[in-house]
């Protein structure tokens, strides 16, 4: 349905951000995000940021499982 890529914001200008995924860079729109800053991580789809995220999935997914097991 929707391939997503997590990437780090390098710089922002006029609603467009240069994002970096392991050295692959491209400009994406961050117009739909509020308060995104360089250094933040975003989920990118089709050239726009669709969510602000943390840099890794580990602890959040672990918490889901811990809640299930509790």
């Amino acid at each position: 349905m929707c391939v997503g890529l997590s990437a780090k914001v390098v710089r922002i200008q006029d609603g467009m951000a240069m994002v970096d995924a392991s050295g692959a860079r491209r400009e994406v729109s961050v117009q739909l995000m509020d308060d995104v800053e360089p250094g933040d991580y975003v989920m990118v789809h089709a050239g726009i940021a669709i969510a602000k995220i943390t840099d890794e999935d580990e602890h959040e997914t672990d918490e889901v499982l811990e809640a299930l097991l509790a």
Partner: protein
Amino acid sequence: MSENMRQTAAQIVQSYDGAPLRIMEVCGTHTHEIFRLGIRSLLPPQVDLISGPGCPVCVTPVGFIDEALWLAEHGVTIATFGDLVRVPGTERSLADARAAGARVQVVYSPLDALSYAKEHGDEQVTFLSVGFETTVPAACLVADQALSEGVENFSLLTANKTMPNAYAALRNSADVFLYPGHVHAITGTALCEDLAKQGVSGVLAGFTAKELVTALAVAVRKAQEDKPFFVNAYPRVVRPEGTPAAVALMDKVMEPVDAEWRGLGVIPGSGLQLRDAYSSIDARKKFEMPHIEGRPNPACRCGEVLQGHCKPSDCPLFGKVCTPQHPVGACMVSGEGACSAYFQYGGGQL
């Protein structure tokens, strides 16, 4: 620690010994990743994983490709996601049209389609706007930008779809839905909460190995509690409120419309079209396109596959005349199409 957690999740899935359970992964990217990671082989035999209709290429009707071909034949440059290039229309695909001289520009983003139009002022450029709520905001961004900047050689041919009414149409096809993480990154979780109140269970799932296995663990564990549930197993990306700015933009630019889903037929209010204010960039209006009715191959069972009523391998065309190299149905074209995934990854042999 984290590696252990994944193993714990995998063990929960593997050791499920409850009643038969049908889990539908709604999202085609889930289908793709589940095959790529070999996750099916973790499932006990009574858990059936059904590939749902969440692949925009797969549910886009044949007639949409015919419409795009009509535009290409009338000299319009088609800008499209790579996914659509090889999808067969009634008689041919965009790849065939390109070989015959049509201009077909593959883009990564709708923003690139608009940039292409600006750089090629002597061409009329139409972007093929397919996709669900995740993809729609990007299309709406460029629609809004094209209109406000007065880019006169750019337009959209829309076949966008939305999930809410599709869930309702599919509610009897599965016991638990794996909800598409990135759709709900935009729309939030309210719909999933409501569905649980109406008796429809589901888990919002991410896309990494651990996220998928964890979501499945939640699904099989919660299913044993015997009451409808909803769990957001993708909190890293999906907030309860979603992305309000994206929803507002979608509402500004597009309006609901009845939409045909390949295989599912017309689902009321499940599509989006450009609002009247955007008529000048609506390709159907701009080029006064005729109504085009596509004719799918009558033997193709993509429709039943998409509803989970049959497996790809049940289709008489599967693997014989219909292969990824020579696709007949859309489910064989897209890398995330159920038929393609079955064929590419050996269809349940592993």
